[in-house]
């Protein structure tokens, strides 16, 4: 326990220091953390054996919510934008979840995909609200009333994102250790027994779905503020696929997994685009094969070895 906290702190410190050595990493890692949040949302549902092939919709909803609040509602405060977008994503998560968490397996995956395609289409077509295919620009927010240069805001955003990883990561960790979190993986292993304990699988999943949408929403808001522009592509199904890939690659057994997967993929992507653009897909493919065959617990498995913890009971592997 002590040791894992230490390794986590060290990893966060490396994240915090990396841009000092290589400034271009700041943007790359901000986006990695943003997508890491969304992938963590996907990973939560994977623990219940549910694959969402549409989770980028909540990432997009978070991003659009930030942009919409900033442009149309005139909310310019940084903290309000992040909290507001998270709340809005959570709201839509619960709303869609009411219907989606009735389904399992391929139906769940496909229905998430279908809903996300509707969201994508709406983002592209509702020109008045979403700016259509041009998307929305997001101005640099104010921070407690102060107006910052874009570059200093980006720095602040990056360190806020790291703090959020620690804070929300800890809360999700607590959630997963709680009865409600155990009930989530219990849905996967034996839904009948869960119902016979008097626990509703539906509300267990709805809670998880709402949390997972909120996490994706935080990610979307961070991305929107970092890029300064949101586009319908945020909700496109390939983005959802990317989130599942990130979660599986990183590992779903712990909080760190999806972030590890995301940082790995974003860095590889950045490097590959620069040196060997066509190699990107091959690198990702090979990385995934290596994980599936040699690291069933994902990159998180490496993290665990560092921590010196044996694979933990009751935590699903992929």
């Amino acid at each position, binding site marked *: 326990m002590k040791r894992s906290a230490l390794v986590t702190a060290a990893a966060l410190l490396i994240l915090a220091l990396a841009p000092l050595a290589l400034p271009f990493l700041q943007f790359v890692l901000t986006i990695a953390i943003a997508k890491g949040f969304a992938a963590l949302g996907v990973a939560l549902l994977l623990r219940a054996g549910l694959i969402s092939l549409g989770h980028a919709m909540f990432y997009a909803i978070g991003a659009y919510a930030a942009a919409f609040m900033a442009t149309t509602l005139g909310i310019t405060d940084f903290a309000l934008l992040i909290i507001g977008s998270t709340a809005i994503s959570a709201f839509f998560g619960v709303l869609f979840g009411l219907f989606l968490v009735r389904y399992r397996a391929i139906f769940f995956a496909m229905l998430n995909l279908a809903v996300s395609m509707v969201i994508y289409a709406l983002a592209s077509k509702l020109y008045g609200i979403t700016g259509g295919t041009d998307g929305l620009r997001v101005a640099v927010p104010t921070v407690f009333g102060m107006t910052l240069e874009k570059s200093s805001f980006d720095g602040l955003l990056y360190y806020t994102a790291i703090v959020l990883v620690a804070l929300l990561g800890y809360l999700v960790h*607590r959630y997963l250790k*709680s009865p409600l979190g155990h009930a989530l993986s*219990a849905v996967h292993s034996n839904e009948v027994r869960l119902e*016979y*304990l*008097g*626990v509703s699988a539906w509300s267990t999943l709805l809670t998880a779905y709402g949390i997972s949408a909120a996490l994706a929403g935080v990610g979307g808001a961070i991305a929107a503020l970092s890029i300064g522009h949101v586009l319908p592509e945020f909700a496109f199904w390939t983005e959802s696929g990317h989130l599942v890939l990130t979660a599986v690659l990183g590992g779903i057994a712990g909080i760190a997994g999806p972030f590890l997967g995301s940082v790995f993929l974003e860095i590889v992507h950045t490097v590959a685009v620069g040196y060997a653009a066509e190699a990107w897909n091959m690198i990702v493919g090979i990385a995934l094969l290596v994980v599936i065959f040699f690291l069933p617990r994902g990159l998180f498995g490496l993290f665990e070895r560092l921590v010196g913890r044996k694979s933990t009971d009751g935590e699903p592997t992929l």
Partner: protein
Amino acid sequence: MSDVLLKAENLEVAFGGVKAADGVNLTLNKGEFVAIIGPNGSGKTTFLNLCTGYIRPVSGHVWLGDKEITRMAPRQIARRGIARAFQIPQLFTDHTVVENVMLAIASREGIWQALRPLDRREYRAEALELLELLNLRDHAETIAGTLPEGLRKLADVTVAMALRPQLLLLDEPTSGVSALERFPLMDTLMKAMKARGVTALFVEHDMEIVENYADRVVVWNAGTVMAEGAPAEVMKDPRVLENVVGVA
């Protein structure tokens, strides 16, 4: 009247052409330990499914105390105090045995405690005590999915007991266990249930077990109750001897 715990009235359900429940009537009193016997496919498990809301009857009623529970979902019935151990054990196979039990304990208080750990001292203590009582203490940290069949059934019973039910339904609790171990297992179960004042209904194929442990036996045949009474009386009934004992 006041000591009637469970009452089933005219339950009917059919699968395809098979009448798995064909007008079942059964009353269970508080504190009783009642056995159900009957040939394979006579509808014993179906009756437990009907009582716990897993399947809904076409007609008929089930009461728990003076509350009708006929069309309730399994989780609603579970919350009202009926727990069940299954013919095929139903465990959280990725969790350890003690976690399975702790989850049952936690669900008793409602599971909506999102930030307190499942593995807390008072839950663990209670779970281990119960596992001790059922001779599973040594397997507390075993992943439930890797337990041998006989122990899995016992773990399933432990989970059901952890709910502190008024009524416990056991579907062939001794079936995964060798003949030699059946009596010790039943002794253990009886002790645990007596200690907790649990009323129980158990499906059983082994006549010796029934004769030794049941206050009353109910004989199932072709989806309905064919006979009932004290074990010694029922075993003399020629129809029972022909239809059930011969087959079972």
